């Protein structure tokens, strides 16, 4: 190849990459992390994006958003979305997230000492109090998974309500405490709510549906979670093992 052409192409590619970075930082980094490592939104530095493996799917998702999730539609042009994708793919080749831990040991901790399975389903087994983790390795970075174990209150799912016109199913695991006229006290995860009724799953896995007119008290426990902090309860090595296990959870093959 003619050297001048090669230089020109390299320069153009570098420029395009810069533009991708600029667009990514402005539109995506808020939720997906400054380096695509994931934050409130899933990590994007992965070998394969679940919903956006092809360029066409990536374009559609970035432009239209994902209904019933916090992923909003954007107003970017096709060219801009392609630049973002090019930037991410370059990142992906540079970084391949691994954990220091051992996923097999992590699986044993998940079922045993950690007690995680009491509240989290993996591949059809486990409790229903917390979010299912069968797919968690697709959507969370090692750093976020570690933080979730140390400060669970800080890692509660956000409702992202301001992005969404309506929320057909609340998905933010909000804890609510109610007291009925008869004096019954129930604390649980909110499954749904309208102006007149509320549905909860209590900490013993019992479902409750209340009419608000029958309640004397209803308190939203924003920021609270039944999940304990594992700070001091697991060693650094054990935390690494659990993170490695969770990163390996990529769900059932479609």
């Amino acid at each position: 190849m003619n050297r001048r052409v090669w230089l020109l192409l390299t320069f153009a590619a570098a420029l395009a990459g810069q533009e991708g970075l600029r667009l990514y930082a402005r539109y995506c980094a808020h939720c997906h992390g400054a380096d695509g490592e994931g934050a409130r939104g899933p990590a994007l530095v992965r070998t394969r994006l679940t919903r956006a493996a092809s360029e066409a799917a990536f374009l559609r998702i970035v432009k239209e958003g994902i209904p019933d999730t916090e992923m909003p539609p954007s107003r970017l042009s096709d060219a801009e979305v392609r630049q973002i994708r090019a930037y991410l793919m370059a990142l992906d080749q540079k970084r391949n997230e691994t954990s220091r831990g051992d996923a097999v040991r992590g699986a044993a901790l998940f079922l045993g000492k950690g007690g995680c399975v009491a509240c989290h389903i993996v591949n059809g087994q486990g409790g229903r109090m917390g979010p299912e983790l069968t797919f968690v390795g697709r959507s969370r970075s090692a750093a976020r998974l570690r933080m979730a174990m140390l400060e669970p209150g800080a890692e509660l799912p956000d409702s992202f309500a301001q992005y969404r016109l309506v929320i057909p199913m609340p998905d933010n695991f909000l804890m609510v405490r109610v007291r009925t006229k008869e004096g019954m006290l129930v604390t649980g995860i909110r499954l749904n709510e309208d102006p007149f009724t509320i549905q909860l799953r209590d900490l013993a896995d019992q479902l409750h549906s209340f009419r608000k007119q029958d309640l004397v008290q209803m308190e939203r426990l924003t920021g609270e979670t039944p999940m304990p902090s594992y700070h001091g309860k697991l060693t650094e090595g054990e935390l690494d093992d659990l993170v490695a296990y969770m990163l390996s959870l990529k769900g059932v093959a479609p």
Partner: protein
Amino acid sequence: MRLWWALAAACAAWGQVSFERIVDADKEPGNWLTYSRTYDGQRFSPLNQINRQNADRLGAAWIYQTWNTEGRPRFETSPLAVDGILYITEQPSDAAALDAATGRPLWKYRRHIPPEVQACCGRVNRGMAILGDLLYLGTLDGYLVALDRITGRLRWSAQVADSKLAYSITVAPLALKAMVIVGVSGGEYGIRGFLDAYDATTGRRLWRFWTVPGPGEQGNESWGGDSWKTGSAATWATGAYDPDLNLIYWGTGNPGPDYDGEARPGDNLYSCSLLALDAATGKKRWHFQFTPHDTHDWDANHTPILTDLEIAGRRRKAVIVANRNSFFYVLDRATGEFLLGVPFARQTWAKGLDPKGRPVLAETKELVYPGLHGGTNWFSASFSPLTGLFYVATREEGTRFYVAPTRYRPGALFTGGGPAGIPAEEPEGYIQALEPATGKQRWKFPMPTPPWAGVMSTAGGLVFAGSNEGAFFALHDQTGQPLWHYQTGGWINANPVSYVAGGKQYVTVASGRALIAFTLLQ
């Protein structure tokens, strides 16, 4: 033979919806002849068969399912009810006539809207107008069409605006005298907004008022450089009309680009304003700008309500509106004079309003209350002449705004930024009753999420409202106490109306993909 013709003419005239019938709407309380039932925008029904004593006996009389095949439904229609027939619109720009007692369709008008026709905020329609024997429908591809009310067949069609520039029509037109008033959507695409009047019989355009004044026109100096060309100020919510003053009251939307104020230095007239236009000429009598130089997408696209109020010891012909910027306003509707402005929902953007009603801005912050969807939105408020109270669905929700300068390309989104980064708290909503002369809150009814549905008050002492979760309900108009509720199972994103068919009062509202009519069960 001559007698036969005279009889036929008389029958036809009797069945027709004349301008006089709409002006005198209170003489036929069982009908709903214009968007808000009356030209004053009050969305009040004088019917009282359904009332505080028996509201708990309400139940669904029938459910009509639309043929809507749009993705997530946004069914925003406000039906018209004329002598036992309902006239509704469906997404994207279809219409139907239903037997009001049974919900059975009598005809359908379907219009193909090409997929490339853009509408930022949903391929929606909010209803029709009626005059004589014609129904008037604004279409997403930028046309005003007249349909035969008996058959649903197209009688005439007039192009209002070019959909290639991302103009669209979602608003219910307003028919008055012998003309049809219609506005446009497209405020997120850098359109230049306007309000039009068309001859009701022929579809010929009678006048156009540009909501963004051109060079040499008063107000153009409020736009730096050429920014007026893409100034937006769309007109997508139905206005009100005062037959005595012969003035049309119509709100205008955000300036374009929505969030990038630096792209358009100045107050950006007449965006985010209420306009009073002479119905005969389309000339502006006065304007009031609620949010000068808006950067938060706070369209003033509301149905204003006309009523007479005692303010500071003086009887005033007033126009009242709860604005998306979270302030409730009372203006003199003859002169536009600012009489009152007080917040009705959480707001952090203004320290208050000055004596002329202009906001005194607070320090600029990223997180702003209200958010981009406002302290309220397009869905209607209501005024009950019996209680003298103003009822409105309100939203408590903030937004973190960012600016991202955008270059204008015809037909492409032109917002200059957007909402980003969400605070963790859950937004909520209320139905509120305000004393219009003071803005003082009389009561409020809480809702777990910020509503997208309008309210209607009735002579039965009830206020009807709906929630995002599908609850449709009736509140005591003096106390806000809930007296009845029904879970419809769909998002309620529309205004309720009430009518009589076969001697029975019905209340109807769109929910999900369905229109549901409620009446007293035995």
